[in-house]
C-alpha cells in the first residue's frame, strides 16, 4: 500500500489555524468572578443541566431574585458560549447543549418565582412548504433562543397560510424561513406577497442551502441570512433600530 506524506499535497488549514488555547481555557478567562455566578456559567458551558439548577438553587438560597438571575447569569453564561462559537473556539453541538441547559435554568427560575421574564422579543421560524429539510431551521431556532429571544417554531413543510396566521397571531419582531430545495424556496415570495397584501411589514429573514442573496433581494421584506449565527445578529440589529434596507446593507455581503 502506498502512503504519501501530505506535505505539498494538502494543507489542513483547520489544524494550521487553530487557536492555541483550549476551549476550556478560553472560557475560563471569560467566567464572571462572583463565587455564586461562576459555577453556573461553567455549568452552562459544560451543558450540564443538573449543575445549572444546583447553582441557581445556591444563588436563590443566597438571596438572589430568580427572575433577575436569568439576565444576570444565565444570559451572561450563554453569551460566553456564543461568543466562543463566533470566534471559532467551540462548535455548534456545544452551543446546542449549553442552550438546552440554559433553557432548563430559565424554566427553573420561572417556576421558582411564579413570574414570567421579559424576553428580548418574539420570532417566528419555519421551513418552506414542501420542504422537509429542517436541521438548519432547528439550529437557527436554538441560536435565537440562546440569545434570549422567544421562538415560535412552525416546523417543516409549513403551508403559507399557517405562516401568515402565525404572524398575525404572534406579532413577532421578525420571521425566518429556511429552504433547501430550488423547488420550495419560491414559497418565500408568496409568503412575502401575502404579508404585504395583509399590511404586515416585518423583516423576513431567509436562508438555507437553496437560497441566495439575489433571490431574497427580489421581494420587499426579504433579508438573506447565510449562517445560522447571523439570525441572532439580525434580531439584535432590529432591536437597535435597523430597518430592512439597513439589514440588507449589513448582511447582503456578496
Amino acid at each position, binding site marked *: *500500500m*502506498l*502512503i*504519501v*506524506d*501530505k506535505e505539498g*499535497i*494538502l494543507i*489542513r*488549514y*483547520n*489544524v494550521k*489555524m*487553530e487557536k492555541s488555547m*483550549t*476551549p476550556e481555557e478560553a472560557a475560563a478567562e471569560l467566567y464572571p468572578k462572583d463565587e455564586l455566578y461562576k459555577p453556573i456559567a461553567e455549568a452552562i458551558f459544560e451543558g450540564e443541566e443538573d449543575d445549572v439548577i444546583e447553582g441557581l438553587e445556591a444563588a436563590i438560597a443566597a438571596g438572589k431574585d430568580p427572575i433577575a438571575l436569568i439576565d444576570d447569569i444565565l444570559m451572561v453564561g450563554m453569551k460566553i458560549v456564543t461568543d466562543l*462559537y463566533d470566534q*471559532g473556539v*467551540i*462548535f*455548534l*453541538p*456545544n452551543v*446546542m*447543549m449549553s442552550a*438546552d441547559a440554559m433553557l432548563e435554568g430559565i424554566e427553573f427560575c420561572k417556576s421558582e418565582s411564579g413570574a414570567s421574564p421579559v424576553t428580548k422579543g418574539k420570532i417566528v421560524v419555519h421551513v418552506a412548504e*414542501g420542504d*422537509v429539510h*429542517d*436541521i438548519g431551521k*432547528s*439550529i437557527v431556532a*436554538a441560536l435565537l433562543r440562546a440569545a434570549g429571544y422567544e421562538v415560535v417554531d412552525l*416546523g*417543516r*413543510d409549513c403551508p403559507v397560510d399557517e405562516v401568515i396566521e402565525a404572524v398575525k397571531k404572534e406579532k413577532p419582531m421578525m420571521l425566518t424561513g429556511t429552504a433547501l430545495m*430550488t*423547488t420550495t424556496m*419560491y414559497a418565500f415570495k408568496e409568503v412575502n406577497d401575502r404579508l404585504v397584501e395583509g399590511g404586515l411589514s416585518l423583516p423576513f429573514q431567509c436562508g438555507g442551502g437553496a437560497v441566495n442573496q439575489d433571490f431574497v433581494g427580489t421581494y420587499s421584506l426579504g433579508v438573506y441570512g447565510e449562517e445560522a449565527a447571523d439570525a441572532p445578529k439580525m434580531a439584535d440589529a432590529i432591536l437597535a433600530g435597523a430597518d430592512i434596507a439597513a439589514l440588507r446593507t449589513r448582511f447582503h455581503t456578496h
Partner: protein
Amino acid sequence: MAINRFTTMAYSEADEMVFGNAKKPVKAGLDLEIGAGYTTAEVNYAPRPEAGETQEKLVNEYQRITKDIMARMVQVGFPSVVLETEHVQQMTNNPAWGAAVAHAQKTIMEEYNEEYGIKCALRHTPGDIREDKEFLGLRGDKMTVVMESFDQVAESGADLLSIESMGGKEIFDYAVLRNDVPGMLYAIGCLGSMDMGYLWQEIAKVAQQKGVTAAGDTDCAQANTAMFIAGGLLDKNLAHTLAIVARAISAPRSLTAYEAGAVGPGKDCGYENIIVKAISGMPMSFEGKTSTCAHSDVMGNLIMQCCDLWSNESVEYHAEFGGTTVQCWSESLNYDCALMNTALKSGNEKILRDLLMASDRFRDPQSYILAYDNAYKVGEAIVKDGEDIFLRAKNAGMECCNILNGSEGLDMTKFELGALAKATAEFEALTSESETFMSDCMEKYSAEVPVFKPENYGL
C-alpha cells in the same frame, strides 16, 4: 424474503479490492455488467423546478435529459453508461408519473443501444415519502405507495431499484446536534437497520417478480447529514471525527439491504459503501471529485478507490457553455472511468487506486477511515458480531475510534480530538447487551424526542 446476515468478509484482505471489480458482479439493463472488470459512469440529474408542474412536462424534461446524455456518450466514444433518476416527490406519490418517466427514458436508451451498441442501464430511486408533516410513518399507507411506485417503475423499464430510506432519522436529527453518540448508534445502527430489513425484503420481492435488480440503499438521511453538517475544514458545526463515527455505524445499516435480498450496485452517496463492498463483495457506486455540482467533498479522489459505478450525485438540468449540465458532468465522469479502465486493462489498477487513496488519506478523519485498508478493518469489526445489529454497529463505531486514536500521519484539531475522546469513552461505557441498550434508549428517547413513534419499527 429472509434476512441473511454477513458474518465473514468477501475479500480475504483489503489489498484485494480495486475499482471496476466486485466479487459478485451484477448484470443489468442493456448488455451492461457492473463490477465485471470495468467501471461505468452513473449520471444523476434533477429536473428544473418548473418541469414538475404536470406529468407531461416532467416526462418531456427527462426525455431531454436522457437524449442529451446518450448523444454525448456516443460523440466522445464512451462504451457504457448508467442513468439514475432520483424521483422528485410527485413521481413517487403518483406512481404512474414515475412509470411514465421510466418508460420514456428506457425507450431512448434502447434506441441508442440498438443503433450504437452502447451498454446502459436505468436506475430509479423513488423518494422515501413515508412521513407526514410531523412524524415518520414508515409502515402505513405511505409504505403502500412506495411499493406501488417500485412495482410500476420496474414494470416500465427501470433496471436497478434503489431508495434512500429514512428509518431512525427522527432520533438522529436530535442526537447529531448534541454530540450524542449513543443516540446516533440507536438511530442508525438499530432503528435504521430494523426499518431497512422490513423495507428491503419487500423491494427484493418486487425486483424478483419483475426480473429486475434490487440494487441498494444509502444512509443519506443520517451519515450524509452528519457529513454535510460537518462540512469543510473550517466549519464549526460538527466535529469531523463524529461525522465519521456516524458513517462507520451506517455501514452495518446499509449492509442490511444486501442481507434482505439486494445484490448491488449500492447507491452513489453511500460513502459507507467501501465497507459494504469489503463485506458483501457486491459492486458499489460512489461519488466524489466529479460530484462537486452537488456538494463539496473532503475525499474527492480517495472515494473513487474501489468504485464500480462513478457518479455525479445530482445536477440541475440547465445550459452551460459546453452543453447541458448533464452532458458536461457525464463527460467528465466518463473520462474518470476511461482512466480507471485503462489502468485495469494495463494491470496498473492498484497503483492508480493507491494514488487516489493517498491523495486524500490525511485530508480529514473521514477520509482516513474510509481509506480502503481502514475501511476493511471496520468491516471486520462488523462481521465479528454480524448477527447482532446493535453489537456490530457498536463495533463499527468503536473500531473507527480505535483507528483514529492510533492514527499515523493524520493531524487533527484539538476540537476533533476532544470529540473523539468523548466518543471513545462513551463507547467504552456502553453495555454489550442489545436488549439493555434497546430498552434504555426506548425510554430515554421516548421522553426526549416528541416525534419518536416506536410503532414505526414494530417496537
